[in-house]
């Protein structure tokens, strides 16, 4: 058996597949395209709203820590949230740039390499922005209560804040341990595929 011999079998398979599946696929394509258009519209809005939210967040936090720069815990809380907001916006922009250059019409090897990079970035950035919320919620509570209710939660109960931070630190540790296995597995798969691509490119 030679690879060339298989061309005949391939042509036969083509006929079978065309006969059996073309009608069913044709019937479903139109409704699927309509659904896809609706989905893309919502996805576009989702990204837009996501960006707007974090810009609004930074726009709220920046004047806050400037206004309360003489109160240490407000200054630090505000700066931490400001830095987090800017980081999330930057990660979002980088992700959008990575998505923008990962288009399906690129040559297969180029696309797959970029797709692997995007996957890797998503895994790492997802962890980097997700895990801090074990602690950040308490910081948000301090800033939010002062900003909107004029209640200084930290002055009322510093012990609550520090116990929340301690609990959050434990939470981050436990989550990191659990996530480590999953992430390592996903990252290893991404790295393995990146190696496959390199080997394939080299010939």
């Amino acid at each position: 058996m030679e690879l060339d011999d298989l061309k005949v079998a391939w042509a036969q398979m083509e006929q079978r597949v065309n006969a059996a599946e073309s009608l069913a696929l044709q019937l479903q394509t139109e409704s699927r395209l309509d659904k896809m258009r609706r989905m893309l519209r919502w996805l576009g809005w989702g990204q837009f709203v996501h960006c707007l939210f974090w810009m609004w967040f930074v726009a709220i936090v920046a004047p806050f820590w400037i206004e309360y720069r003489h109160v240490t815990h407000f200054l630090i809380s505000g700066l931490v949230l400001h830095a987090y907001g800017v980081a999330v916006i930057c990660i979002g922009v980088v992700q959008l740039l990575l998505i923008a250059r990962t288009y399906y019409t690129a040559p297969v090897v180029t696309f797959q390499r970029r797709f692997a990079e995007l996957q890797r970035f998503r895994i790492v950035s997802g962890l980097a922005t997700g895990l801090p919320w074990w602690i950040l919620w308490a910081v948000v509570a301090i800033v939010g209560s002062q900003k909107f209710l004029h209640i200084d939660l930290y002055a009322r109960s510093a012990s609550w804040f520090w116990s929340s931070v301690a609990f959050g630190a434990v939470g981050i540790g436990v989550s990191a341990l659990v996530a480590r296995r999953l992430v390592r597995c996903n990252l290893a798969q991404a790295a393995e595929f990146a190696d496959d691509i390199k080997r394939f490119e080299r010939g």
Partner: protein
Amino acid sequence: MSRVGAAKASVRPLQALFEALIARHRGIVFKVANVYGRDAEDRRDLAQEIYVQSWRAFPSYDQTRSFSTWMYRVALNVAISYRRSAAYRERHLSTVDDATLAAVPDPATTEPDERMRDLYRVIQQLDDLNRALVLLYLEGRDYREIAEVLGITETNVATKLSRLKERMRRDVADRNS
């Protein structure tokens, strides 16, 4: 005419062109879905995903260039990404090579079906990128177009195909011995 009405009117000729081109090259979608999908449901999902992504990418298609090359790129990129997706891995936790081979039509020993089984066996043993290479080769695409679709050099295409042929000869020899 309202802005929404104007937008819809501008999409219509594009959609008509897309549907006409897709109808002419429908075989590409079927064959890629058949080579990368593991069962009928998988193939159906994959084919639809290829249609969706093709339509999404269609505004970037340069009409002075070959549609089949463009279509192969989209279809293969979608198929390989689909196979690598978490959803796919969850659906196919077990190794399914045997199941796939069992699904090959008609286990009779007539020569055409034997060859079909051999074909599936060869394809299932390949990694995703080499599978794309073999698919394009079986389609009768020349080395230049294969290189263009995959993004590697023509020399690389020739080397890889030569190695694959050699590997197949060895596999056949091992099975016969």
